[in-house]
């Protein structure tokens, strides 16, 4: 096995494909899960790109991991195409089903401790899943692993000699302003990558490495099965009491339609082709904005 400078893992998720044309909604506006296909979640894709940066810049070894039913291996394959992973992990067992974020984090912690490359130096996750949207699984996995958690990361670089990471984080203080914070921390770290993260490669050698790995990734993803390892609960050494429904402190008690609020305004309905009405709307708009009445 080649010596790698860095050992990196990415946590991804197979999510409903919200792309127009692929997503299907019921007449009441809710997602039609049966008709909607699944793909690698968009935030998982950003996390995969961040891992690929570690490969191109630092020659990192990359593993992609996910928990889910057997079909979730599709997400691993799609992520492998993005980050040229050496190893794909699927944590799949009936008893994992219905897990909340804490019980999911328990499985991911067990899995990430079993990388071929040894202990991870960096674990990446996306900002949050497009369907669950909690953003909790990443930080909870980090805490269980005992890794320093860095969230909302928009840029990072590694100092290989000192084994430290320097990262920029984007913090929105609602009602105030945003803060870009630069932090430094020793490895290992867990990085939840911000949606606005974009890897950039400046030098010729980086671009060459980028192209080489991208080409290699295509080949690997075509034969992804040979990189794939599937673990059940027993193989992970997961305590059945800490995973799946039994290990979830929370339950979904009920799901209901959000009641339609009482109409708060009474609308003038006008026809979109009625020139005269549109003229009045336009002048009303200026009136509202400029405090002027146009006769």
């Amino acid at each position: 096995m080649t010596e790698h400078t860095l050992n990196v893992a990415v946590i991804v998720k197979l999510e409903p494909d919200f792309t127009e044309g692929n997503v299907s909604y019921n007449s009441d506006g809710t997602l039609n899960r049966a008709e909607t296909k699944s793909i690698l979640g968009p935030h998982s894709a950003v996390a995969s790109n961040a891992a690929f940066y570690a490969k191109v810049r630092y020659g990192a070894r990359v593993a992609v991991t996910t928990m889910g039913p057997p079909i979730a291996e599709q997400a691993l394959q799609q992520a492998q195409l993005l980050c040229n992973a050496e190893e794909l992990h699927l944590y799949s067992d009936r008893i994992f089903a219905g897990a909340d974020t804490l019980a999911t984090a328990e499985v991911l912690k067990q899995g990430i401790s079993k990388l071929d490359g040894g202990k991870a130096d960096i674990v990446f996750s996306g900002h949050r899943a497009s369907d669950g949207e909690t953003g909790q699984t990443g930080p909870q996995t980090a805490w269980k692993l005992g890794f320093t958690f860095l969230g909302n990361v928009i840029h990072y670089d590694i100092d290989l000699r000192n084994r430290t990471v320097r990262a920029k984080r984007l913090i929105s203080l609602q009602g105030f302003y945003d803060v870009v914070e630069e932090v430094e921390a020793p490895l290992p770290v867990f990085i939840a990558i911000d949606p606005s993260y974009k890897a950039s490669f400046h030098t010729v050698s980086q671009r060459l490495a980028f192209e080489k790995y991208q080409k290699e990734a295509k080949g690997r993803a075509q034969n992804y099965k040979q990189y794939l390892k599937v673990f059940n609960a027993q193989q992970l050494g997961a305590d059945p009491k800490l995973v799946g429904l039994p290990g979830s402190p929370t339950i979904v008690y009920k799901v209901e339609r959000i009641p339609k609020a009482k109409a708060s305004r009474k609308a003038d309905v006008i026809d979109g082709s009625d020139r005269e009405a549109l003229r009045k709307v336009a002048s009303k708009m200026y009136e509202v904005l400029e405090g002027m009445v146009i006769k």
Partner: protein
Amino acid sequence: MSEKYQHLYVVIEHDDGKLVPVSLEMLGEARRLMDGFNKKYKADEKVVAVVLGYNAKKMCDELIFFGADAVIYADSPELLHSRNLVDTKVVSSIAKDRELAGKFADASQFIKPRYMFFAADSIGRHLSSTVLAELESGLASDINKLVVEDLEIRHEHKTKGQAMKYEKTLEMYRPDFSGFLWTTILCLDNRNPAIAREYHPQACSIIPGVFAPIECDTSRRGIVVDYQPTFDERDLRVKIIDRKIVKSAVDFDSHKAIVSFGRGVKDAPEQNIRLVTELGEQLEAEIGISLPISKKPFTVGESISNLYMIPDRVIGTSGRKVEPLLYVAAGISGAMQHIAGMKESGFVVAINPDENSPIKDECDVFIKGRMEEVIPLLLEELRKQKPAIEVKK
């Protein structure tokens, strides 16, 4: 009477001593919830604000005026700015500290708080996750309604299929990604003997801008408790090198008008988004989007995608709450979660072909039609009238 799990702890956020609005909103809801709780159960459980910082003490009075019965503050130069690792250690130590709880109530049996609130923002979302991983209990995110109830639960795992009564259970309501459904999350002890385990606190993160603060009452009195945090080197391994305040790329606040678009652009996304931005330019408006757009549901050029189809532009419960003088909703159906973000706007114009869309009940003018047809005509009218306005100025 002391119980194992008592009180509602609210984790406060501030920037260098200035309280972030959601902190007061959480306290307001905590106050209302615990007033109801104490009345219903003839109890005397407290709203406890937990605040970390450097010179944190100066915030304590304000927290009491806005609803806290007690404030636990941790003061140290190491806590000047929020860092997940050290904050997690301090907040979870405070939550487990019986002696601290004893400063404001009988705590002889105290183990952990009954309930806990965090803000669902860049800091609180992650802090709540790590604190609850440390406290090994349940957490619900992005909550916008809370109720305390005695519930009869029958659950395959929690109760082994038996009906059991769970008293004083916090019902935590969260809108789902579509904005149409409300999911109620409960954090429940496992009473099934095979997996028996107690899960407290019942915790959640709260969407900023949802709950109202109570009115500031300077005559309110409370108990201020000083917590002396201790750190080891490992707790401090993240160093803040630099901190820059930046204006967010999207600026809703200094624009008089906002033009937003939703899935209604779908027939010709690229063209329609251009139309929307043209309308925005004409009205000198900032551009907003509905939540589904942030999931990049269309293939459009990268520049349009990266400029417009981003979470920062989302208006609604999972984005920003705005109050412009003029709000134009183009191709937005009006899911509850979007309405919550724009309903305080001055004058609202909706452009939509479907008269049954919920947005119709939230606008002043409903222009029935497809945006590809309506916006060009509207632009024409706006352009015709613009010179008149310039002259009057």
